[in-house]
């Protein structure tokens, strides 16, 4: 359409019998040219298509009539735009494996925690001791010592027929979904997307290998983006509601950082317990 407007108007202007006709024709040509530029722009930045080859072909073609070379934006594919429609190539890998979301965003806003921690200097080094509060139940002393806090964590294996598994054989998507407040109907649908994103942890030799992971990430970001807005309107007794409340109260996280954190929780919460 843009190409037709652009070339048609220029051709018309070239053969027009009167300069009065040239004025609207050049205006139309400008519109068409702007459209072509817009297409090439989207190709260069990534959102036109997930395929680098298609972006290059369409971008080059769109710029051909404008007599301008097509150059892919240097950051295309390297910078995740956290609005899902601009969620670009390799976003899955960046979100999962760099400081963009983890661990900076999620857990430790204190810059001290961004620093790598020193390596242990030997088997007895204090750095090798488990952190406070994360001791696993079987490691805690059996008496009433300081480790009692860990023992206070409910061991659901104690109950004869535990009730928390309420959603049939869904297993982990149900448990993590319940904790986060993901509506029941959405949970199993997320499973495929979650599995797809795990490719982003792996070594890949061709960036196109990440396309399914990026597509999966789109699904998760859309879902959790919606969920954050929904829980802001109607809070519930779940982790997403609590995190939205805290984010809105202190502003420590940006909105997209909150969504990135929740995406990470969903992937880690479902993938490791259930699929391995």
């Amino acid at each position, binding site marked *: 359409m843009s190409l037709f407007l652009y070339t048609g108007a220029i051709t018309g202007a070239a053969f027009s019998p009167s300069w009065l006709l040239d004025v609207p024709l050049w205006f139309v040509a400008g519109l068409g040219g702007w459209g072509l530029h817009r297409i090439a722009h989207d190709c260069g930045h990534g959102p036109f298509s997930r395929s680098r080859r298609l972006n290059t072909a369409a971008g080059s073609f769109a710029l051909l009539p404008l007599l301008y070379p097509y150059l892919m934006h240097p950051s295309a594919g390297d910078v995740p735009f956290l609005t899902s429609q601009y969620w670009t190539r390799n976003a899955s890998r960046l979100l999962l494996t760099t400081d963009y979301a983890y661990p900076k965003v999620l857990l430790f806003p204190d810059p001290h925690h961004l620093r790598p*921690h020193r390596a242990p200097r030997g088997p007895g080094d204090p750095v090798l001791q488990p*952190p406070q509060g*994360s001791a*696993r139940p*079987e490691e805690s002393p059996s008496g009433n010592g300081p480790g009692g806090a860990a023992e206070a964590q409910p061991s659901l294996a104690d109950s004869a027929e*535990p009730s*928390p598994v309420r959603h049939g054989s869904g297993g982990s998507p149900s448990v993590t979904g319940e904790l986060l407040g993901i509506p029941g109907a959405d949970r199993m649908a997320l499973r495929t997307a979650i599995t797809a994103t*795990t490719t982003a*942890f792996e070594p890949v030799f061709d960036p196109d290998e990440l396309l399914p992971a990026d597509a999966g990430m789109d699904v998760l970001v859309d879902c959790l983006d919606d969920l954050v807005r929904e829980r802001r309107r109607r809070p519930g007794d779940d982790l997403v509601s609590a995190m939205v409340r805290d984010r809105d109260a202190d502003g420590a996280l940006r909105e997209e950082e909150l969504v990135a954190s929740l995406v990470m929780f969903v992937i880690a*919460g479902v993938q490791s317990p259930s699929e391995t």
Partner: protein
Amino acid sequence: MIGNTVRLALNHPAEGRGMTADDDLLSAFITETLRIEPPNHVLTRAADPDIDFYGHRIAAGSRALLVLAAANRAPRRFTDPATFDITREDNRPLSFGLGPHYCLGATSAKMQVEIAVPILRRRFPRMTLTGPPTYRDQLMTRGFARMQVTLSP
């Protein structure tokens, strides 16, 4: 974790039966499963200062792949490391990491296994593996592509 625990319970029937009756055995079983079959095999970290790590120099700023699965089988830490043994003393695998970045969901993950696996074993006490399971073609996260079982032979 659930898949690995079920697979090991079927391969080690005596311990597998014991876990449904005894919470301590169940916990020990899951910990040993985590040691020998960690869900995530690798973590990435960067060195802050220069580090001398058991005689190997790691320069500040270097990025390192930490193979948790190998650490969990380190002979100087675990006796007879390739053997699945739920009676190990002081069994503390690195599967959930360590230090301030210790996995936030570790307790939740273990609780899920503590709940799910005994329910499955009680429901299908005669379940057996049909054949060796196949694994997904992944290095970092290691899980089954397919694990076929016979529920009641």
